[in-house]
């Protein structure tokens, strides 16, 4: 049975936090750091924050973004995200010194990470897994997959995490091994499934579906972090539903991290 009570906490009201640094790391990919000690203090891997656009824009709904890194000493919160539309574009354009209104940390994050776990990241889905790996600091392997090298853009410095071995793979072979995340995962598991503790994954739905299937076949606990369009971010509006074996659940509150076996994938 899966527990919904992993890591929710009181988050109070949205507040403005100053932008420390905002860097375009590649076309369409942004690394945004804010001074947000109140959020950093409480955040656990897998949780997210809501970012509120400034008033009087055509886009007003807050955007949910996974927490990528936390620096407890400096109180800094870093997000790594892909610009998907006008809403995320607003935050990609935010300048250092400006203020962004945030609410968080929100949602139910990852459970404790066992040694020798496999982290499977598809594209920008690497964001919550970097936080997970850094917080756990245990020997683990991380598959980092994308279609092409141009999308494998997570800064190398952010991937230097104690105990973590990063295995890159691209579908066109432009960097790392040629193939998909699940090709590589499947090969690792076929060689010796018993040596791995669990699977943690975030990325596009088709990839998560394949990862969930592999985890089930090999009998490994598998946790996936889902993405959905949200409005409230706090479990009230029921806008971010995901179909599970126990009915619709809220990605923002019951998730975004779910045990893979409860999620129903349609396609």
């Amino acid at each position: 049975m899966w527990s919904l009570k992993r890591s929710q906490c009181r988050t109070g009201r949205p507040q403005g936090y100053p932008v420390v640094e905002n860097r375009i790391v590649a076309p369409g990919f942004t690394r945004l750091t804010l001074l947000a000690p109140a959020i950093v203090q409480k955040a656990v891997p897998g949780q997210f924050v809501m970012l509120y656009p400034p008033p009087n824009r055509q886009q007003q709904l807050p955007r949910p973004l996974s927490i990528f890194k936390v620096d407890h000493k400096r109180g800094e919160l870093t997000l790594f995200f892909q610009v998907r539309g006008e809403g995320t574009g607003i935050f990609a354009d935010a300048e250092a010194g400006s203020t962004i209104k945030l609410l968080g940390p929100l949602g139910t994050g990852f459970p404790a990470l066992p040694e020798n776990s496999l982290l499977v990241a598809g594209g920008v889905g690497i964001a919550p897994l970097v936080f997970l790996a850094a917080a756990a600091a245990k020997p683990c392997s991380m598959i980092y997959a994308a279609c092409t090298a141009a999308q494998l853009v997570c800064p190398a410095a952010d991937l230097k995490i104690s105990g973590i071995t990063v295995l890159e793979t691209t579908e066109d072979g432009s960097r790392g091994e040629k193939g998909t995340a699940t090709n590589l995962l499947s090969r690792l598991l076929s060689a010796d499934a018993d040596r791995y503790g669990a699977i943690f994954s975030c990325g596009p739905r088709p990839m998560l579906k394949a990862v969930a299937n592999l985890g089930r076949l090999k009998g490994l606990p598998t946790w996936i972090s889902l993405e959905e369009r949200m409005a409230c971010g706090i479990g009230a509006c029921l806008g971010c539903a995901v179909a599970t074996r126990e009915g619709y659940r809220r990605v923002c509150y019951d998730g975004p991290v779910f045990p893979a076996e409860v999620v129903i994938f349609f396609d």
Partner: protein
Amino acid sequence: MTKPDLQVNLGGLWLSTPILAASGPIGNSQQYRERFSTRALGAIIVKGVSLEPWPGNPPPRLAETASGVLNAIGLQNPGLKHFLEQDLPQLTSAGPRIIVNIVGRTVEEYAQVAAGLTGAGGVDGIEINISCPNIKAGGIAFGTDPDQTYQVVKAVRRQTSLPLLVKLSPNVADVTVLAKAAEAAGADALSLINTIAGMLIDIETRRPLLGNTFGGLSGRAILPVALKMVWQTAEAVKIPLLGMGGISSARDALQFIMAGARAVAVGTALFYNHELPDEIYRGLADYMVEHNVAALGDLEGIAHKGDDYYE
């Protein structure tokens, strides 16, 4: 001048302020309790409650549009029994009055939910939802045909002495026909408008974006449409109106009151402005002081003066 009087009587329901939280965005309001001050709210309208649990629509359920939000949640809710046992006891300790939005697939279901809520302590009013555009059976079916509107309101009226609001749909040729049917069946007040039916297409998947194909549009984009319908309805019925549709400031709220609303509700804007009820409260009070208005009721429908069709 003395402190402006913002109390209103909405169809027998006395409210400390004319600002309500509309049914939907804030759910049953529990999650928002720590996130905004309910001090400025006269009442909270709890998200639709049905007799049995309803599962809701397949995702995706919402998307943002230009100054608006398109949603098709599908009235997901845990049902009357769960609401009475789990949710209501926690809501009644909050300050604002509690109005419960009710939904059903049949006239009998609406009546049973109304009866269940009336027997329970802590419910201050009922809002009949006959206008949700996202439910094929029930919901809007009752809101587009004046005979069915009459039947469902009449059946609920027989079950309850609580103040009874009827929430009207904008997705009709003439909203005043439905308004008159609801009034004739015994409604104490009318809420308008619900969301405007719409859709979006995802050009990558080449499929409708929402899991339900169609959804309802809310937010600032719909304000002029809502205001016109409040205006028209104010000229057609005698019972008070609760105006809503894209309100995101005190200026917006004042327009609805001047169009003929007794009170106003905010919905979509609460997603991004948790201070909005307080801002509207202050804005209304300031306007009244500046313009020497003693009671908010003095502004109700004032924009109709000189209009040929206003009595």
